[in-house]
Structures are given as structure tokens and as C-alpha cells.
């Protein structure tokens, strides 16, 4: 990374790129098919670190899917290296929004907890569960979504996320009164707009090693449930999830027989810089 510095988010604000607002969550706009059954899914991703080749197809697939601005990423792959020549090891850790469930009992991830507009939106129902949309909110199926038409631009969610996966989006302008000059926030949405239509997220679709697997943890026949069973991922969250000490209960699980996650030092002081996806 060395001398590469991306404009701070405050700088980004000043650029004031003329862009339009977007609603990241699209649920309300979809045709009325596949209506909720009694049990909601719990969407999750499993990343098999044995199969990630560091190709970055995921990163670019996401750039294209959303037209993500330069300087921003919704998913990245980090190199993790150790040992000395000729025993050098190099591994790859794909990263994205963990779509956290939040600490047990609380059941609200830090980004939602800190959002003053977390319940400012519509009253909704998914299956039997009721919920409200917000600037940042958790859908009953586990997706952490955003509605930028409700965002006031306080950026507390950016600070709250211990993983640094949120950033100011120069392509999204806020729309609430007196906020029109401010920019919105971007992050991975688990491709809710694709999943709601019955197709996997863009990064999963294209993953060269099929290292990324997506599905419903509540459905024992789903590929993620099968991997959970085989590798006991939900039973070993201290090993299979990132920064377990943060008690966020991530729903991105890693198959990691070589203990790479434990050796990946996420730079928490500069967590947004850490979420820049350059290739080394």
C-alpha cells in the first residue's frame, strides 16, 4: 500500500461529484412472485480459502455490477504472506461486508445500532416477521441493507463497522432536505437484488476457484448448510469468522485449515485503507 493514499472521506465530500441518489435495497420494486413462506432464509457466504487463487474476479464483478466508483470497493482480496525464502507462503483472504447478525441477545450489528435512521423507513413484512427499513437496517433474512433516501450523512455506520467495509460513495448524493450536498455510503449488499430474483451474488457467480459459496443456512440442502455441516463453521466461529472478538457474529464464514485468518493482521487503525483492493 505504501504511498498510495485514497482521499479521506471528508475530502471526498468536498469533491461533490454531481451524481444521483440510489437505493441499494430494491425489495419493494420487485415483481410479486416467490412470496414469503413461513420460514425465512438466513443468507450466508462461505469462503473456502483453499480455493481462492487471488484472481480478483470477485472485485471486478462487483465493480461492474454496481458501477462502483474508483477508490471504493465492496469486496477485496488481501494477500497474507509469511515465512522466509524458499519456504515463503502466500495466501489470499477475500473480504466483504460480513452481514453480521450482531451480538447475541442484541441481534443488531454495530452499523445498524449506530444508525440514527435505522427505523426511519417503511414497515415491512418478510414471511411472518415484521421489520422496518432504514438508512441502514437488517432484513429478517440477515441481509444488512441501506436506503440512501433515508440517510442523513452522519457516517456513524462507517466508524461503527470494525471491518472498514463501508465508505463514502462519490456516486451517491443524499436526497433528504438540507442534505443534498452530502454524499451517501456504499458497501456490499450480498447482492440482495440478485438473490431476491433467485441468482447468486455477482462475486459468487464468477469466483474462479468456486471459493465463494452462497446460500441459506436455514435450508439443510443449501450448499452453505452442507459446508457448515462438513466443517462445523457455525460451531467454531472463533476460527471461521473474522475478528470474532468484536462479537458481531459475522455471516461470512471461512474454511481455513491453514489458520490464515488468525495470521491476517487487519489494520484496525486504518481499517478503510485496509479495504482497498490493490493487487500485489
Amino acid at each position, binding site marked *: 500500500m505504501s504511498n498510495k493514499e485514497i482521499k479521506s472521506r471528508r475530502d471526498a465530500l468536498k469533491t461533490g461529484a454531481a*451524481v444521483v441518489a440510489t437505493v441499494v435495497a430494491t425489495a419493494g*420494486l420487485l415483481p410479486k412472485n416467490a412470496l414469503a413462506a413461513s420460514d425465512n432464509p438466513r443468507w450466508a457466504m462461505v469462503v473456502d480459502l483453499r480455493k481462492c487463487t487471488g484472481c480478483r474476479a470477485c472485485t471486478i464483478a462487483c465493480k461492474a455490477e454496481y458501477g462502483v466508483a474508483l477508490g471504493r470497493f465492496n469486496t477485496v482480496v488481501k494477500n497474507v504472506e509469511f515465512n522466509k525464502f524458499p519456504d515463503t507462503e502466500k495466501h489470499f483472504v477475500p473480504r466483504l461486508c460480513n452481514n453480521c447478525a450482531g451480538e447475541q441477545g442484541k441481534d443488531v450489528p454495530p452499523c445498524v445500532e449506530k444508525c440514527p435512521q435505522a427505523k426511519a423507513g417503511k414497515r415491512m413484512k418478510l414471511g411472518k416477521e415484521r421489520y422496518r427499513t432504514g438508512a441502514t437496517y437488517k432484513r429478517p433474512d440477515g441481509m444488512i441493507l441501506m436506503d440512501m433516501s433515508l440517510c442523513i450523512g452522519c457516517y456513524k455506520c462507517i466508524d461503527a463497522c470494525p471491518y472498514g467495509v463501508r465508505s463514502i460513495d462519490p456516486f451517491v448524493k443524499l436526497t433528504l432536505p438540507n442534505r443534498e450536498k452530502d454524499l451517501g455510503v456504499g458497501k456490499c449488499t450480498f447482492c440482495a437484488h*440478485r438473490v431476491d*430474483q433467485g441468482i447468486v451474488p455477482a462475486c459468487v457467480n464468477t469466483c474462479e476457484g468456486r471459493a465463494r459459496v452462497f446460500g441459506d443456512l436455514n435450508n439443510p440442502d443449501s450448499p452453505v448448510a452442507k459446508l457448515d455441516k462438513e466443517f462445523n463453521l457455525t460451531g467454531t466461529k472463533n476460527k471461521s469468522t473474522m475478528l470474532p472478538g468484536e462479537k458481531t457474529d459475522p455471516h461470512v464464514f471461512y474454511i481455513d485449515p491453514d489458520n490464515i485468518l488468525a495470521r491476517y493482521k487487519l489494520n484496525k487503525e486504518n481499517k478503510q485503507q485496509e479495504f482497498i483492493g490493490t*493487487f500485489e
Partner: protein
Amino acid sequence: MSVKITRRNFVKLGIASSALIASGKLSESQALAGSIKLEYGGKDFSPATGVERKAVPTACWSCVTRCAAMGFVEDGRLVKMESNPKSIRTQGLMCSKGQSGPNDVYFPDRILYPMKRVGERGDGKWKRISWDEALDEMVSVLKPLRDAGTPEKLCFHYGRMKASSSKLIKSLFLNGAYGTKTLPGHTSICEGGKWTAHELVWGGHFDNWDFDNTDYVLNFGSNVLETHTNHIPCGPRLIRAKVDRGVKVVTFDVRLSNTAAKSDEWVPVKPGTDVAVLLAMCNVVLNKGLYKGKGEAFMKFVKATKNHDASFADKIATLKKHCADYTPAWASKISTVPASKIEQLAVEFATAKSACLVTYRGVAAHHNGNEGERAAFMLASLTGNVDNPGGRTKAVGASVKYPHLPKSSKAKVTKGLNIAKGSTKKGNPLYSSFPSHGCCQAVLKMIEEEQGVPDVYMWYCYNPVYVNGNFAENKKILRTIKHLWCSNIVYDESSKHCDLIIPDATYLERWDWEDMVDPNNIGEQYIRQACVKPLGEARDMGDVACQLAEKMGIPLGVSSKEEFVKKSYDMTPGVKEAGGAAMMIREGVWHDPNQKPIFMRYKNKISADKVNADGVVYDEATGVYWNAKKAHVKDGGTYENTKNSYKYYVGQKIGDEVFEVFKPDKLPKSGYLELYSQQMERKGHAPLPTYYADPAHDSMGPDDLILTTYKVAVHIHSRSTHRKWLTELYHDNPGWINPKTAAARGIKDGDKIKVKSKISTITTTAKVTEKIGPGIIAISYHLGREESGRYASGKKSPGGNDNDPDLKNIWWTEHGVHPNHIIPNSVDPVNGQQCWMDTVVQVAKA
């Protein structure tokens, strides 16, 4: 514009959103619930509006793999690429390069109009002209050359031109109708040397690696998980073989590539010495008798001695003698690979049920690359791992029939300048014995030496200054040629010196049939169709060929590539019955469901009818049956001394039978897999695979390092720095150097360093890393652009516009360096391959 949300969409979205907010009632989310099986792809939706994006089956062209693809179009704009999930080659996968396809169409510095130079060459002063003016100007030069019986004075130098593009532009127009054979390609700066070695050993080229069936993979110098000639069809299959089936993967590489990193073992090797390791592995196999079993069975089809009818015992005795001094201890001294490691891996490879021997540019792009490839064939042959399930197999691609040139348009005079074929002057530094894929890097030098001087030098999908060695010299010579034209999408190091630039369509705006090889050994048909109309006034070079021909009164029989492609599918057996062009347009891909994977074709017997056909004779010296009558053989003419005799090859006599074996292609070998090459011997080379070092490596001083180059997973050769999503990920290429090598020179990580070769010096930064061994510096070769627009070089191109809002978001200032300033042009003396990985350099703190 790179924001997907158009104004129109925004309006729609705005209405929808306000409606939602206003209602305030409880509403049901439409999210999927319950036991829904998610599909992998083939569909995509706008994240902003939820509206389905239009899916257009097409094909990628970012690299030569040319994967079947889907383009997704939203409001007339191509926003996204994915794989075609129906493709049996790519299995629904696409790499980062392929995904960045939309950048190729919409980068703001793209050439969109014909441009005529108005200042001095290279001054950057241009006048926009109409297509009629451009075509008339070209015809005003081309027609007189053809009328004067000198069509060869048009040199058309192409980088990548494949399948229908090659057939229409090269076969029908340039060669067929116009009459020039001065048509150099670029294969010798890629991997042409490997193909020549294949032609010497087993006939036609392309080896496929059957990772789906293999039990063991031994890889010399291929970065198949990041890049490769058939990357997506091969790489994902390799990682799945390793993780899902526990197949052991061993990679020899001078640096820790991602492929080496994901292998069970990375074996660092000194650059240019893989051939020594391979020969030592043969020595182990021979001395331990590990050729018994499937090796022995296969050796029946191998020529290993001067005599074509030698017994198995003779063959083994000859190879044993030849390899006697190539011991693991000997190879260890040369390569730095421990002898015990060589022995262990040789035994593992030879005793695996099936084993796949992989080689690529880490072997081929060296002075001794030809011998590396031949030694690899020796190891694979001795262990019976050739063209078998799980081994290195003869690749199978799709075959397409196409409309031929009308007879009335056929050129009466067809000629070519020597520059297309490589230097034929013995003693010339760029002379090689069998440049069967030309000698790209010699073309400009040969023009300077007047070995052939064209009036017009036109290029396509190519950048002669940047992509060959010796950047400065290329530029100097290029500017001396009478007419310089190119068809291009990007203003680059070469097009800036042109007299005329015509704007090419990108691959996402044009049509093709494609034919790249299929790792299933079945062969898959796939189409490229335009996802969107060409931007500005861009035109596919295929269409331009039709128009130039028309204007010169030599029409090609089709008026566009689109017509050519559709007609081709409607006349291709199999495709035609399955629905022809209409079916291909709808589905994108097709393969014969009854076709079984093709392996071991060499065992096919040739029927007595064919052997006894009119004109077929037996050649005593080689054991080959060939049709001497059709070859118009002269008195005393034999299979070996008759020009193009190999085209009339019928079969190889082995014992009392005649087999198809390994049919020759381009070079007149026998039908055997030839470890012993009479062709090599005839040209004064050792007939059996032999080790020799690059002469410059033999005389290296203690301060010298070997420069190695490489590609990364997120760039395409020299062709992608204008793609913002890729360049954002990779825009700087410091020189990788081992901590010990750095310390000896007082260099610390991040220091500025000078890298000096015998021709020039570049300045870069040092990346002190444990991912490379001592004695080497590695610099990738995508960057260091003089031009190519703002994402690549920070410089706006002539005619560039400002309509991409991402221009404001560029956050990097580095643009990297280009190693071709310090790499001289050179050849493998056997096959003409450019020796990219051999340059001796000195590195010091700047």
C-alpha cells in the same frame, strides 16, 4: 459515463421511491424465502431499479482464451460481463480481465473517429476525417501497389487475429484478394517457440492439460491460475482437482506466483535452467526403470533413435546413454534445485496413475526454450503421459466452415516479403532455424537492414514499439517507413507515430465465430455478437476489409463480418442441423452432445485403402506413407527433401501396421512423436533434447542479476491499462528482489533503483520480498505507458473526452515502468522465440 444510473432510470426510481415513502403502510418484502435453489447466472438485474438487464450471449476477447460470455445491457449501455453458464469450456466462470470488458468500450480516451496526422510524426497533431476520406486514402496507396504486381509492399502486422477475424481479414482479403503474404503475427513474442517445438515433436500445436482426470500435476513455468493461453478453462479445473480430489500440484517458478502459492510445493529455480531439471528427471526415470508399464506401451509410438524402426530396448539404451550425464546432482548445480527434490518429484511423477506435465513461458521464453519443451516431451513420453486421460493431451477446438472468396476476386499475383518469416540470413543475430511462427521482434530490424522494405506498414491489435524488446530502436525504425497506418481503439506508443489511425470496434461491438480449445477434449462452438453498436464511428477491421476490397473492385462475397459469421454457422455441419446462426445467436454456445472426449488419436490405424491409394508411396528413410503424386515430387525427391511433403502425409509404419500417430504440421517430421529429430539434426542442432545455457548466463559476473518478466492476474499483456477497474488494482510494478540480493547492494524496500542492461537503463522502486530467490529481479510488463489515456499514463489522448465521472476519482499517481526498454530483441536459435526471461542486468540504488 460509468454511473449505471441514467437520468431516465433515476426518474423512474425517484417516482418509485417517493411512492414507497409516501404510502407508509405495512408492505410485504418480496425477498425469497424458504427452500429456494439459487441459480448461478445467465441473468442480471439493475441494483438501482430491479429491472432485468438484457443478456447478450457473446465471447470475451480480453486474452486469447476467448471465453464464452454474456454481456448485460441496461438502457442501451453495456454495463457488465459474465460468463455464459451453458459453456462447457468455462463452466460459468470469468476472470477479472473479462469482467472489465465494459471499460474497453467506454474509456474516455478511446479513439472514435478516423484521424489523419497533420503535424510531424509523433507530435500528436491530428485532424478528424470521414471514413470515406480514410478509405479513399488507403485505396489510393494500396491499389497502385496491387496493380503494379507488388502487393507484398503492404505489410499488415497483427497482434491477435483469430478465427473468423483471421479468415475474413487475412485469408479472404489480404492474402486471397489483395495478394500480400507480408502478414507477420506476434506469436514469437508470446509463446511461438513452444509451438515450434511441438511441431518438431508431435506435429500441430496446443497441448491441453487434462486436470479433470489427472492424479498429479508437475508445472514448469506456467502461471495458469493467474493468466494463460486457456486460462479460465484450465485454472479453475486445476484448483478444483487439488482441493476436491487431493491431486498433488508442484510448481517450478523463479518467483512465488499465485499458481506457485496455491501449489502443494513451490520449487524456486534459476531462470533458464528448467531444461536441466527436466533432463535430470528423465535420467531418474531411465535409471530406475520407471518407464515400464504405460511408458513402455507409449514408447512404441516414439522415435528416439536415428533409425525409425528401432526396438524398445534400443530406444531406452539410446536415451539412457544420452541422459547419463544429466544427473540430479549435475542439474542441482545449474538450477539450485536440490538433487533429492529432483529425484523425489521424478519418482512421484512417473509412478502416479496419470500425471500431467505442464510447461509454459517459464520454460519457452528462454534461449534454450525449445529444448525445455522437447525435454518435457521426453519425460511425459517415458512415463506414458501423452494424449492420455489425465496427461498432456492434443487439444481439441471447434471447427467452422466459412464462405470462400469469389474466384473473380482472387489475386493473380501473391507475394510476401521475408520480414514475415524471420531472418533467413545465417549469422544474423535474429536468425533461427525454424521460425515457423514468424519472428515478430525481428520485423522492424529486418526492415532497417533492408531484408524487405514495405511501402505500407499497417498494424492491428498490436503495438510494435511497446510489445517487442528494445523499445527505443523500434520507435526509431518505425518512423522511417513510408506509410504508417493502424486500426486501434487506443492511442498508444505506436499509433501516436501513425499517418492514419482508423477507429476499431471493440470486441463487444463486433461479430465473430470462435474456436479456442476445449479442456474437455470435445470442442465447443461459440459466437461473439455485438452487445452494443460501435461507439462514435468505430468500425470492425473485418468490415473495413470488406469495404476496402469493394472499393478496389475485388469484393469478398460478404459485406460485413456479421454476414460472414452468420453464413459460416449456417454451413457448418452440426451447427447447421442444430439451428445454425439463429441458434448460435440465441444460445451463444453449442457442442455435439454425442461427441466423446478425444484421447489417444495416435493409436488410430490407417486403412489399407488409404495406404494403397493412387500416388501413395513408402519412404524408406522415415517409414512414412505419403502421397508423392499429390506433392508433385521431382526425381530423387524424398519425404524429407520435398517442399510441403508433410501436407501429403498418410501414416507411419510401425511394425507391420500403419498408424495415424502424430500427424506433422508446418514441419516435415515423421509420424512418430520425435524425441530424436532429424529436422534438428539437418540444421546442425542436437537431435535429442539437450541442455545448453544462454551464453550471457555462462559469463555472468558477481554483480549481475537475471531479469525475469511476468504477467499479473489483473492485466492483459500490453492491452489493458486503459481499463480503469484493472489499473486501479494494479498501476505500479516495483522490481521484486530477494532480501539478500537487496542487502548486498544496500537496497531497502521502497528504494528507488536503477536497472541497467546492455541496451538501456530504467528507474523503478525495489520491492524487497521473500517471494523471489537470490540472483533475480522480476518486473511485470503491463505498465510504464507513454500514452493509452488518463487511467494508464495520466495523459489525455487526442480526441479524448471528459464524460466519465470516474476521471475525478482517480486516486493513484504511479504508472509503473516498462521492462522492454532494457530487454533486447533476441531469438531462441532453434525456433525464433523472443527470450524474455534471459536479460542480464545490474541493479543499484538510484
